[in-house]
């Protein structure tokens, strides 16, 4: 694939958006630590990705997926996180991409899965600094512009709208009935996290469904489970847990579809041999 062709792929859109966000956030926070963390996460991700591809004897491709995973991890983990923990999180994410698979495609979103395990293993703190969590509220516009461009490119509006609509509706109900901490969820940095997650993590093509009906259920399930977890326990990992359930739904759907397709083709074969 030529570079010009690659630039038109969804992965190029995401990679470009993540690099731009990394630069904007670094300028906004007047802190270059994030760029250093980004480089470490990308290098760790790419090394493990290439290594796993060599073990699996796969054809060489640009490790753009690994670069995106590394960038997302570095934009979510606090800039104060140690480099070893950042690299460790990236390694977990890429290993999950190669180990927990169905038909060579990852079941779970690598970045979300890596970050979730990172909290459990390393007790990492997520600041979502790359989603401009502590910058002025108008910087959310950058998330919306990048998010709409990507969602339009990969045709996942149904999924994103269902996710955001369900999340906000459930949070309104939480606020009305005084359950959990709905106030925080409507304000930075939580709203930044929700938008960043909805536009750039939820829409990952290999781990989310393509059909509109499936996108609707996927978005609904991710939002509902995530918000319920937030209402019950608070914290910052509710989005990742919700997405893991959404990914599981997507996997089960793919599996059931391929089983149906397999049984249909075998039926056709038997009919042909009988005739």
């Amino acid at each position: 694939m030529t570079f010009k062709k690659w630039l038109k792929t969804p992965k190029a859109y995401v990679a470009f958006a993540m690099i731009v966000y990394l630069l904007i956030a670094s300028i906004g926070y007047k802190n270059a630590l994030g760029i250093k963390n980004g480089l470490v996460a990308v290098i760790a991700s790419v090394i493990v990705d290439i290594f796993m591809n060599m073990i699996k004897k796969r054809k060489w491709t640009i490790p753009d997926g690994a670069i995106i995973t590394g960038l997302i991890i570095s934009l979510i983990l606090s800039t104060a996180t140690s480099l070893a923990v950042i690299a460790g999180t990236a390694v977990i994410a890429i290993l999950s991409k190669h180990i927990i698979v169905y038909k060579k495609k990852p079941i779970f979103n690598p970045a979300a899965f890596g970050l979730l395990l990172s909290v459990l293993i390393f007790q990492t703190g997520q600041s979502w600094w790359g989603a401009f969590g502590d910058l002025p509220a108008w910087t959310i516009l950058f998330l919306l512009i990048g998010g709409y461009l990507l969602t339009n490119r990969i045709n996942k509006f149904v999924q994103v709208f269902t996710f955001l609509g369900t999340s906000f509706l459930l949070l309104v109900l939480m606020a009305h009935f005084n359950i959990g901490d709905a106030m925080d969820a409507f304000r930075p940095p939580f709203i930044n996290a929700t938008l960043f997650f909805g536009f750039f993590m939820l829409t990952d093509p290999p781990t989310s469904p393509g059909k509109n009906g499936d996108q609707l259920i996927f978005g609904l399930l991710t939002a509902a489970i995530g918000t319920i977890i937030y209402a019950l326990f608070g914290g910052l990992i509710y989005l990742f847990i919700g997405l893991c359930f959404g990914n599981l739904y997507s996997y089960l759907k793919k599996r059931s579809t391929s089983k149906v397709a397999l049984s249909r083709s075998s039926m056709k074969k038997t009919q042909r041999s009988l005739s």
Partner: protein
Amino acid sequence: MAKMNKKWVVLCSTAIAAVYATGYYSTEAQANKIDMQQNAQIHSQSSTVAMNTTQLKLPQTNTKITTKTITKTTPKTTTNIKTKTVQSRNSSPNISQSKTKQSITAPAKTVQIKRIYKNGTFTGMGENRRGSIQVAVKIENDRIMDVEISDFGMHYSESDIVGLPGEVLKRQNAQVSNVSGATYSTQAFQDAVLNALYQAKNA
């Protein structure tokens, strides 16, 4: 799979923005209340920081001397002895002991010196965009005797900052070292201790 019509995109975006706006404005009153509390805290902390870093570091030996003299004297003279000892915190133990003896022999001469902090347990609150922390700080004779996290309302794990109360006790001030990966919890904890010290400050 057909692309979503632009009209539908606009319509759905508007609907979602409306739901978001409903949630935002329905929680506005609560957010304003917290903002006011935070502003009050910032005001109180700015006046406490300077005092806190310079005046709470008492040498360990002075405390021992004070305790020793209390056991030797009557309740009336104890007050005098304690205040004298605090006053001479930079002097050597021998000098403070001799002063103690003098005050026992001449109990009528009372010198009232104000302490910087009241004795007792004081609660303080620290908040930021990631939640809040409430601490209970126990102060005796201008020394921080105990720090306890009485309410942890951060969106992170409490285990990240379990070592911070011990650090406050060791340093005898609110300046704690930042916990890697728990910057926001560290900040909130530090603000809470400063707030408690402000509550304890003598008028």
